[in-house]
């Protein structure tokens, strides 16, 4: 079957790619566009490692077909830093050791940024609930939650 042409926007830039209709957006990001920051964990929407913001909503890119990206706006972990400057979330994850093996980290960053964009002052419970779709098998979560809360405080100008 002929490869399909998809025109989309990724991290604010117009992008065109070719894909097979059965490829997921995750496959297209990693294999066609070499945007390998987005990770594959379970591949069935349970672990959140492949989280992206798709047309303004946090989603698992493993559960979106690549052709569905036609005309869409996609934000990936590669778009979180500004030039060489890490986003406060990325800095706090590093400074507070909120990662060990790192495979879940891009998904946590994307999901945490989506949370803080809509709720700049979340409670700890709200952070835990918002990140419940992201699994980490190393950290035990506490350091991740603290890094998100500290990032939120910094972004509000309180730290």
């Amino acid at each position: 079957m002929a490869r399909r042409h998809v025109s989309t926007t990724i991290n604010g830039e117009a992008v065109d790619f070719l894909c097979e209709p059965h490829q997921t957006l995750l496959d297209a990001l990693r294999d066609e566009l070499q945007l390998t920051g987005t990770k594959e964990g379970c591949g069935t929407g349970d672990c959140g490692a492949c989280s992206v913001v798709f047309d303004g909503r946090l989603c698992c890119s493993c559960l979106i077909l690549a052709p569905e990206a036609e005309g869409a706006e996609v934000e990936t972990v590669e778009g979180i830093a500004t030039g060489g400057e890490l986003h406060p979330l990325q800095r706090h994850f590093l400074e507070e050791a909120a990662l060990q093996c790192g495979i879940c980290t891009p998904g946590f960053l994307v999901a945490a940024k989506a949370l803080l964009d809509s709720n700049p002052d979340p409670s700890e419970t709200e952070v835990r609930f918002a990140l419940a779709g992201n699994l980490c098998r190393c950290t035990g979560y506490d350091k991740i939650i603290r890094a998100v809360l500290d990032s939120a405080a910094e972004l509000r100008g309180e730290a």
Partner: protein
Amino acid sequence: MNGLGYEAPQSVEETVALLARENGAARILAGGTDLLAQMKTGAAAPQLLVDVKKVRELSSVEEDEAGFAIGAAVCTAALAEHPGLCAAWPGVVEAARLIGSEQIQGRASLGGNLCNGSPAADSVPALVAAGASCLIAGPGGERELPVEEVIVGPGSTCLEPDELLVSFRLGSGKAKRGDAYLRMIPRSEMDIAIVGAGVCIELDDFGVCHAARIGLGAVAPTPLRVDAAADALVGSRVDDAALEAVAAAASAAADPIDDKRGSAEYRRKVAGVLTRRAAKIALDRARGEQ
């Protein structure tokens, strides 16, 4: 999945024509949170996916004097952003918001939750309690069915291969009416219900219940509408005696399976407990106290 086709039609007519042409080899793609996961395991192997999210009637929530038309493919996160719907049907919205993580909420839809056919679908008992109906389009035109008639067995619906669930119809907001949904899961979040209970109560000017509807999930091969439990409320002030009668009727209607997630005996008991608690929340909402 090699050789899979993908189409994104713009209208209901175009969608139905595609489904008719494929004669059962196509599947409708809404949020894909069940279907794409099933395709990954081989549990589903369609030749064509028909993405319905470009069809206006399926991707919008419309409100008029008669009530709401909720597009079958609208994601559950968007339902919570509709102030009119949240005010009129808080139980439906709270049930929809229990389906999966934030990531899943950005894609999953009421239409997908229903058509996946799970006995444990969270939104279905709440929609049953709300008296929702389904607008279904096919080659011969449209038909409208109560939600509780759509699922006919685990994983199966009464929709023909060339039929499309377009939208859910819900009544308009109303004073002295309240609805609520509660579920029991073995974990604290992100799990499949072992019992789900949706209750809708309408009170008259004297605080007496004059209409009620109750839906139960995960306690039978399909979600149930339990009129015997609703009848236990009608004519009462939803006092303790009525709430006990509701619980007993809900437990009696439950015919659950016994599995590692919950024994049949436990599910039967919890069906009564949750129905009673959901009825109390629905009552408070009908009284304007919540």
